[in-house]
């Protein structure tokens, strides 16, 4: 047995499948409330630079 693995990060997946920008913000906020504060997280299906910056602003605004 190579060793016991645990989860060290999270991917907020399943986005970019028809939800509105407002729904996406609500989903991200709801998930972040339940994740460990120091855990790295990846937001999938965020494609444009503006979407990336909006997501960063949203997370920082919640800290």
């Amino acid at each position, binding site marked *: 047995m190579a060793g016991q693995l645990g989860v060290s990060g999270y991917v907020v997946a*399943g986005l970019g499948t028809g939800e509105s920008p407002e729904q996406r913000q609500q989903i991200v906020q709801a998930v972040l409330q339940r994740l460990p504060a120091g855990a790295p997280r990846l937001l999938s299906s965020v494609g444009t630079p503006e979407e990336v910056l909006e997501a960063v602003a949203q997370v920082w605004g919640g800290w």
Partner: protein
Amino acid sequence: MTTPTGAATVTPERYIEAVAALGPDVWVALSDDIPSDSRTDRAAKSVDRTTAWLGACLAAAAQQPGLAAAAAWAAVQGGQYLHERQRCAEVSQHDAGGLYRWLVAGRGRLRVPYAYQSCPACTNAPLMSRLRLAGSPSPAPLPPARRRWLGSWA
């Protein structure tokens, strides 16, 4: 999944075998990806599958010496339903035993792939103002010892 010669079932064990062959620093467990407008019962099933597959992937990965130093990440599914999203996030932590191992050490700096001033979003004054208010006056080098993920850039 479908292949040129027909359909094939990808089990967590087969998935982890493929992951181990790539020798990654970080891998993400299998998840049941659904459209945002799926019904609530389908979203619940997605969360149940995703968390079950997480446990199966972790168990399979523990048998792979090549993944001993790799970091495992969980996918958070649940469609548009906030309570399902939060359930997935919580169960993923509990099923993983709350064992957090920070194994991905970053090196170097994040490189912006094109000139900053050529990015329309970066010249969006209201958005950049929000970012500055949030504590980032300018793109800064990343701390040398922090984890980072560089995904695809459209």
